[in-house]
């Protein structure tokens, strides 16, 4: 073998094979891009994935989506190129008895190129990223502020009354506006730039409605903001995404978007004065049971003690470590309970509301929980023994570190009769 032949064999794989393999590489690349795109399309078609991060339903999430899909695509293409190169190497440069290759330590121009190309790609990604970070943090276009407070393991919402006497720009029809306190589901008007102003009463929680925006941690001692907006009425699911202890998995939340007319109705209903159950009904017995068993922690606005006639005001800070318990004034107006972890609606009624078209959704949601639709199974289990259903620190013998206060709802030892009464009473809370 002459020197020159030998030289060719050592040096040529790069040049003589690129055209053939280049074609093959291109084909592989194209196929792979098609597969990637196909998967992306399929991902978009998945039905009823309520927390799908690729299905924006509002401006903020849409902006994120507009930025992220080209990034995913670019990453996919780069990945395919690397895989193709590895594939070519595996096929082409196996030891088939060729001579020992040149002991080259590199080619400077090639190396600089491989630094420059990713640098340019990343710069192209960086610029819109910085722009969107700023946009998603701006607060000067806010039309509605709602306070949100996390605690183990549920979210509380507090609608403030603004200086002009409105809530989110809506004035109550019948009464003067007063703050609305609710939990589990936050109701917002459609096409309104809502700003959640959030904090926490104990550990760090994170507020996340994937179809409306990215997540934002709610940290005790700090106030953080999160923009929410949607133009489509419906229920948008979310979940606490900062590990917050025992029942982190059971800390959920939902954002309900209503057309302005429906939002007005919701608002009026929330501010309606308390109506006591008719005397002699099971619900009336339930009211007494509620006052005796529940009202220390759970507020029902306007509730009067049936024996004393005085206003009942809860004082959860005496019993619960975070200092708060969900306000139950309009429990049956929302359709989940216990940190939005369980449905108040039976599966059929739930599907009817959740899958409703945007046009029909408002009326169905505002109907609340009717006796026929009530999911008694979960609610009864909860009332029988809450910590058995949702893991909580409520064992009275193990509360040394919290001065005897529970984290979550304790076991109350209610009788089945009392549970019947309470359910009858709660069914009227809407």
């Amino acid at each position, binding site marked *: 073998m002459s020197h020159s032949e*030998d030289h060719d064999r050592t040096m040529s*794989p790069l040049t003589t094979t690129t055209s053939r393999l280049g074609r093959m590489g291109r084909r592989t690349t194209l196929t792979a891009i098609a597969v990637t795109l196909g998967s992306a399309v399929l*991902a978009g*078609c*998945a039905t009823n*994935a*309520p*927390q*799908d991060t*690729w299905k924006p339903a509002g401006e903020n999430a849409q902006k*994120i989506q507009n930025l992220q899909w080209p*990034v*995913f695509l670019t*990453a996919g293409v*780069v990945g395919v190129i*690397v*895989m193709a*190169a*590895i594939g070519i*190497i*595996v096929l082409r*440069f196996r*030891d088939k008895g*060729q*001579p*020992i*290759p*040149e*002991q080259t*330590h*590199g080619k400077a121009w090639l*190396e600089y190129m*491989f*630094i420059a190309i990713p640098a340019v790609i*990343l710069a192209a*990604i960086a610029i819109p990223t*910085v722009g*969107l970070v*700023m946009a998603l*943090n701006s607060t000067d276009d806010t039309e509605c502020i709602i306070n949100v407070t996390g605690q183990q393991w549920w979210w509380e919402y507090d609608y403030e009354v603004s200086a002009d006497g409105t809530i989110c720009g809506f004035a109550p029809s019948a009464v003067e506006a007063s703050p609305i306190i609710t939990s589990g589901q936050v109701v917002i008007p459609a096409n309104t730039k809502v700003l959640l102003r959030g904090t926490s009463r*104990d*550990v*760090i929680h*994170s507020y996340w409605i994937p179809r409306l925006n*990215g*997540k*934002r941690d709610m940290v*005790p*001692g*700090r106030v953080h903001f999160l923009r929410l907006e949607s133009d489509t009425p419906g229920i948008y*699911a979310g979940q*606490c*995404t900062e*590990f917050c*202890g*025992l029942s*982190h*998995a059971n800390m959920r939340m939902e954002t309900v978007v209503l057309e302005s007319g429906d939002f007005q109705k919701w608002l009026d209903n929330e501010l309606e004065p308390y109506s006591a159950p008719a005397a002699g009904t099971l619900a009336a017995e339930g009211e007494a049971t509620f006052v005796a068993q529940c009202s220390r922690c759970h507020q029902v606005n306007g509730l009067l003690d049936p024996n004393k006639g005085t206003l009942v005001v809860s004082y959860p800070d005496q019993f619960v470590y975070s200092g708060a318990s969900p306000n139950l004034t309009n429990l049956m107006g929302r359709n989940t309970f216990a940190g939005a972890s369980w449905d108040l609606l039976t599966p059929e009624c739930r599907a009817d509301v959740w899958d409703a078209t945007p046009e029909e959704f408002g009326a169905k949601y505002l109907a609340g929980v009717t006796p026929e639709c009530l999911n008694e199974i979960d609610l009864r289990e909860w009332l029988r023994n809450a910590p058995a259903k949702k*893991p909580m620190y409520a064992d009275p013998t193990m509360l040394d*570190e919290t001065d005897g206060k529970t984290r979550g709802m304790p076991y109350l030892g209610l009788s089945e009769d009392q549970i019947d009464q309470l359910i009858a009473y709660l069914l009227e809370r809407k």
Partner: protein
Amino acid sequence: MAIIERPSEEVALAPSSVPEVATPSTSYGIFRRPVETTGWKSWLFTIDHKKLGIMYGVVAMFFFIVGGIEALLIRLQLAGPNGTVLSADKYNQMFTMHATTMVFLFVMPMAAAFANYFVPLQIGARDVAFPRINAFGFWAFCFGGIFLNTSWFLGGAADGGWFMYAPNSSVAFSPSNGVDFWGLGLQITGIASLTGAINLIVTVINMRAPGMSLMKMPIFTWMVVVVQFLLLFAMPVITVALFMLMFQRSFDATFFSVEAGADPLLWQHLFWIFGHPEVYIIVLPSFGIVSEILPVFSKKPLFGYPLVVFSGAAIGFVGWGVWAHHMFASGLGPISVAAFSVATMAIAIPTGVKIVNWTMTMWGGKIKFTVPMLYAVGVIVQFTIGGLSGVTHSVAPSDTQQTDTYYIVAHFHYVIFGGAVLGLFAGFYYWWPKMFGKMLSERLGRWNFWLTIIGMNLTFGPMHVVGLQGQPRRMYVWTENRAGEGFFNIGFWNLVASIGSFVLALGVLTFLINVVISHRKGTAKAPLDPWDARSLEWITTSPPKEHNFDRIPTVGHLDEFFHRKYEDRGSGDHHEFHQVATGEEVVANEEAHAESHIHLPSPSYWPILLALSLPIMGYGIIFNLFLLFGGAVLALVSLYGWGLEPHTAGDDEFDPPTGAALEVAAHG
């Protein structure tokens, strides 16, 4: 170890002799220095970097199995909706300890095993600079890991996640002793990392063979050095944080008490200033291993060696400026988020350089796809996937959709399992014949490789899907209400991931079987140079003698061993390599020119005793302050004993006593 090479003068004069070994026959009671070279005491009191390396490996492998079982329990729990395998409490402990075990008790010490064993060999040294500190480091790690895991039996393990965010880590929210065990256990293993880091840095700076300039240093050693610097600066940060946590929990300090005016984000900053460099601490040693293996099996030098070195160093530096990308959702404010977002994109560049250079190393090569090579290629492919999904969440707004979901779990498992762990397995197969003189079976190795690759992709691949479909991490149950339907429903892919985890476990099991089978009696001894390797650790016997090299090699090339075997017979730009010697011949030549005066430091009781005092003090802080004082007394006694002990045993401690003690340089 305890071999003090002390050939007689006559032997030393004979030019081609192998040094004679003076072996003490008995030891002299507990107050005399241990001198055994065989039996359990030779392991317990050894300061030989190779024995310590093997012990690091064995203990780390044990914890790998423990962490793996924890992972399987997690996957069993999540295989279907509303899992009942574990309670919420046990599940939270399980994922906390799975991460803690895998990061601190498997990947880091397994990398330390390779570093301990091979850095001295790769730089042509006889041991590390501080052999007793080296032994102390190993025992501190070992006892720290055991201490950490005893929490399972003493009231429950830590349940706050490996990131242990405040204030969820304080006593009111985590009343068991788990978090105390976690903090103190990591403190102890942290001492091990810190001492190891200083030791290896000093070793590499001072003890390289003649002719080995920094840019002729093997790439694995380079990456280990970068990692040691990262450890040197990162461990103090977590040490401070862990001390604050300890004072918060045990002595009523208020570092993280919001009601006392503290900001819980302080912990996050401290943790991630440590935690992000930790990512590179985990992955760079494996990058080094891969960068050793690819050239060997491609028969080409590492493409762009200086660039790989500098990009490793660049990753080391820039790695300090990206910690807050773990906190994009924490509420840092837009300026910080934007800055850390861009810095995170920047670190993709040196990381990409590695991928490109590895690919270019293979391009045009003469490649043999042995099992170590398969694993090395596996690292390129799997790590690339992890790296690219990393780019998607360097885009901060996109990250607010992905962080704390399974998409992140998928990402970092592709990085840590696909990058670090596959790299370690590449190292097992590549260096096994060097360490034990036995080849691991290639056939079983291929089963091991493919089961691992299929298993890991089945396990972690679907997590991309469930993450993007909105499943958060660290949930002890998931519900069908949020699972969706159709091809991308969360339920199906959770099941696939759970099945995959068992395939992966089968892969790891195959490795263990391979080890057992390869070490059965009667299996053939491995050839001296089975892979036609390129670097210095192969210029000696397998396994290496206790003094590593009969003659300290003089280094003229980056790939010294290759250039001793092959000669360039081309001229000018034309190169033509021909084999002029086999590995056996090169090693025989070294043996023929053995040095006559080889001195090694002697074993010692003190390192293990000092290390033992640490968990005793740990138990003391948790259970009884008197125990703390007991541990402190043991520590003091050990420190004085250590300080007063000469680095080399006196001649009268041997039986029979030998001639005058010979002085040793650079050992302490």
